[in-house]
Structures are given as structure tokens and as C-alpha cells.
């Protein structure tokens, strides 16, 4: 399965990626008297996959809908592919692909019919047949959309999102309600879009494993604030959850949490004057880090 390129393949992103695909400065959103976004700053580089990670209600969907031009922000500056999405026209729309949370539109259209129809809106579309092959829906081409399973429908939504050969793809909670196999297929598809085609992808998710698997960088959004941004490794280092050290001493199992496990192990060595019995050092996983961040925010 190879995603066919709509146009001759572009050169791989150089070390200088140029202006960011998305630039957000001091973005605020207020519904009535409730603030949903409190001044978010974020750049998405061209060609990268950025995951906006956060618990439900953190403001992820609001952010992505502002970027898609579906929602008017309260204040702040937003530029998507060099244009303010609030006054973007058809030319901009043709460069942006959108996959929303859950779509059940065009229920009675046949899969092939729908993909072929939507290819007609774009100046330089992909080949509908090749695209159906690429997302694994060739066998369902003649079925009505309402007959598709959840995972198939989602792949159709992605096909419709990229039929115009966009430079930038928005994926809002793309794998909610997927079984593990559908999720893995979907991840493979997104990875291919990013690596083979250099498509910039902004996805929202509340699933850390998904963010870790797919994203070059993760932006953690909690309570309308961006509290961390970086590669999965950087994030783990940035807010270090305590490591746990376990050992045996005087026929007793001991354990201790510490920011600096190496230091503790050295102290133990010195104190016990030799090998430490039953030594175990458990480093925090990214999940521990993320949960730690959520706890810190709540506190």
C-alpha cells in the first residue's frame, strides 16, 4: 500500500523548513463568561506531525476548529498556511484537509461515488481509485456509506480529507471508538502520509500512546493552557516524574521514590558497602510523565 502522490513528489523538507504551517499567538476563546482557551502560543512546522494532547474538555477541538476556519476566535493571531482562516477563501480550502470527530454525512452515497464526486471540487486531485486502494476501501467501493463499519467510515473520511492533495491535514480525535487493529491500520496510514508525502498533520487526541506513536512533537493542552511542548523524549525529561528504586536490606523489601535514582543507588552502594540485593530501578514512562502533568495542573 503506497499513497499515490497527486503531483510529482516534492523535495524532502530541508534543514530550514521556512515559515511554519501554523502559527498561533495568544489565542483566546471565551464562550459567554467561560474561558476555554487562555492565551495559547504554538507553531506547527511544515512537514511535522504535531499531536495536541489533553483530557476531554481541554480545548483541543475548539483550537482545531478555529484553525479550520469553522469558529471565530475571541482574540489572538492565527495564521494557517500564511492566511487567517477566518477570511480564507476557496484557494486556501483546497490546500487544507479536514477530518472531523465523527461524520455520518452522505449516508446514502456509494463510497466510490462520493470520493469521485469530491475529487471534482479540487484543482489537482488524487486519483479516486488509487486513493480507495490506499485506504483499503476498494472492496467497499460499491457500498453505501451507511453500511461501513466505524473504522472503514473513518478511513473514508481520511480519503475525503486528502482527496484534494492538501499540504496540511487536520485530524480531530481520529481513532475514538476504534478496535486495536483498526487503530494500528490508521496509524500506519497517517505515518505514510507524513513520511512519504511530507504532509503537515495536526491531530488532537486524549490518548497518549497514540500521540507518542504518531507525533514528532506533542503539545499538552490542559484547561485551555499549553503546559508542555516537545518530542516525546523531551517531554519525559521536561517534567520528570519520580523514578522508583526497589531493593532488599536486612531481609526486608524497601522502595523509595526519587528525582535522581542514580544518586540514591550510589548512596545505597556506599551504605551497604557492595552490591545492592534485588536492585530495581523503574524509570518513569511518558504515561507517568503525562499523568504527573495532569496532577500538577489540577493541584
Amino acid at each position, binding site marked *: 500500500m503506497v499513497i499515490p502522490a497527486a503531483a510529482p513528489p516534492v523535495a524532502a523538507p530541508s534543514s530550514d523548513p521556512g515559515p511554519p504551517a501554523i502559527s498561533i499567538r495568544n489565542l483566546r476563546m471565551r464562550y459567554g463568561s467561560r474561558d476555554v482557551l487562555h492565551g495559547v502560543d504554538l507553531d506547527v512546522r511544515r512537514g511535522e506531525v504535531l499531536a495536541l494532547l489533553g483530557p476531554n474538555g481541554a480545548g483541543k477541538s475548539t483550537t482545531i476548529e478555529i484553525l479550520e*476556519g469553522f469558529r471565530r476566535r475571541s482574540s489572538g493571531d492565527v495564521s494557517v498556511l500564511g492566511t487567517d482562516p477566518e477570511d480564507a*477563501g*476557496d484557494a486556501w*480550502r*483546497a490546500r487544507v484537509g479536514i477530518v472531523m470527530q465523527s461524520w455520518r454525512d*452522505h449516508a446514502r452515497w456509494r463510497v466510490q461515488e462520493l470520493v469521485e464526486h469530491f475529487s*471534482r*471540487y479540487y484543482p489537482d486531485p488524487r486519483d479516486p481509485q488509487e486513493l480507495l486502494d490506499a485506504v483499503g476501501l476498494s472492496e467497499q467501493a460499491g457500498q453505501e456509506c451507511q453500511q461501513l463499519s466505524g473504522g472503514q467510515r473513518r478511513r473514508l473520511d481520511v480519503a475525503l480529507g486528502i482527496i*484534494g492533495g492538501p499540504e496540511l491535514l487536520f485530524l480531530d480525535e481520529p481513532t475514538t471508538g476504534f478496535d486495536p487493529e483498526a487503530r494500528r491500520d490508521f496509524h500506519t496510514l497517517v505515518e505514510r502520509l507524513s513520511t512519504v508525502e511530507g504532509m503537515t498533520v495536526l491531530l488532537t487526541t486524549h490518548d497518549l500512546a497514540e500521540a507518542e506513536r504518531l507525533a514528532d512533537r506533542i503539545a499538552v493542552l490542559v484547561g485551555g493552557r499549553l503546559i508542555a511542548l516537545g518530542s516525546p523524549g523531551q517531554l519525559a525529561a521536561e517534567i520528570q516524574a519520580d523514578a522508583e528504586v526497589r531493593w532488599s536490606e536486612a531481609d526486608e523489601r524497601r522502595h523509595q521514590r526519587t528525582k535522581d535514582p542514580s544518586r540514591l543507588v550510589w548512596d545505597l552502594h556506599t551504605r551497604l558497602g557492595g552490591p545492592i540485593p534485588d536492585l530495581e530501578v523503574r524509570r518513569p514512562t511518558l504515561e507517568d510523565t503525562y499523568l504527573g502533568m495532569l496532577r500538577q495542573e489540577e493541584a
Partner: protein
Amino acid sequence: MISRQALVVGLHRGRIELRQTMRTPREYLGHLGNPAMFLFAASLQTGNISGSSVASSRMVIAGGVASLLLLVAMVWLPQQLATEREDGTLLRLRGTPGGMFAYLVAKTLMVITIAVLSTVLLLVGGAVLTDSGFPRSPGQWCTLLWVITLGLVALALTGAAIGAVLPNPRQALAWVMIPMFGLLFVSGIFFPVTSMPQWLQIIGQVFPLKWIAQGIRSALLPDSALVAETAQSWQHWETFGVLGAWTLLGLLLAPRLLLNSSRRESGSRLMARREVVGQRSY
């Protein structure tokens, strides 16, 4: 937004929607059922319009044509708009270059096709099964064409405005049908409007349906049927004036309301509403 490409895509969209209607019996039978119903009502008529020698069935056929336009433009169309707003169709098209314009083109094509086909069915059926017939002169043919065209435009624009403000498709039928029956009643569709109280007649005159029905009668009935008309005249200028006014009003309101209603939608709102629908169905 409005380009030749979007127009061509819109027509393609309209053709696919028509094809889907053709392969869904529930839908095409629904559209066929309307003219059949009016044809049946006309065939039950035996007498003449009071004070004339013109068969009552001819008035029912003429009223049926006006009602068919009303049904497609102000019941079917608003329901479609409300449904497709809720299922995300409008939102997807908003995120697609030229999508909204193509959508409007497709819906226009659908409305015209349904209106023309059901009107032809009713007229031909009326000619075969009842004493009704076709226009007798080029002048009457002209009248039939302009009344149906202007009437359909006025009704469809109003219907689009209604569809934009309907809360949701499940309530749409109730919201639309009850006033619709009232309108059918006060517009003198199936019995002479002169038999009704003065104040009801005045209410009927504000709305386009009375004028469409009267205009169609003027194209299908002989002048000897004028005894049953309010003004003892076909009032073509008045008809043109009222339908033109509704068209202008619709042109002012419909695009603005449609744009607002599609702006109101977003993925998370669709999601939230779907959860409500889901809960209801349990």
C-alpha cells in the same frame, strides 16, 4: 466562491442525488404519491364550481399543482436542509472549495426536477382521468409557465429560509406541516375562496399560495370560472406583485440565514447533538 467549476460540480451532485432518489422506493413513491393524492381528490368531484358550468375537478387539479409546488419547496426542501445540516453534509461542504455553492445548485436542480415531474404527472393524469386538461391557448401556456416559475422561486427561497432556522429534522415536520395545512385552508385551493369568511380570505392573500393557485387556474380554466374568484378577475398584475415581493424577501433572508446556520455548525456541536439523539433512541 461562484465559479464555473462549482456550477458543474453542483450539477453533478444534483444528478447523483436524483439517481439516489430513483433507487430508493420510499422516496420516489413519496414524490409520486402527492400528485396521485390530488388526482384521486379530483376524481371524486362530480359537480360544477357553483354559479358556473366549469367542473369542480378542474379547480382541484389546478389547486393540486399549486400544492405540489408548496410541498416540494416548503416541506421537502426545509427538511432536507435541516437533515443535512445535522448529519454534517453542510459542514463538510463548508470545508470544501466551492462546496456551499455546489450544494445550492444541486438542491435547485432537485427542486425543479421534482416540481416539474409531479406537475406533468398531475396535469396528464387530470386530462386522462378527469375533465381537466391543458392550457387552451398560447397565452394560457405562457401564464402557466411564468406562474409556476415565479411561484416556485418564491416558495423555494422561503423554504430555504425556514430550513435554515428549523431546530432539527425530527421536529421539522411538525414545525412545517401545521402552518402548511392552515395555509392550504385559507388559500382557496380546493374550494372557492369566496365561500370563506372575509378575514380568512385576507390572511390568505398575504401568502404566495393563493396567488399561485389563482394564476394556475387562470391558465387551466375558462373565463366562465371567474364567478368564483374574489375579484371576479384573474388579477395577473397582483399575482406578479405578491410573488415578486416574496421572491425579494426570500432573496434578502435566505442566503443570510443559510450562511448563519452553517456557521453555527462545528464538529464538536454535531458530536454533542448526536449524543443527545443517541440517548433518545435508547
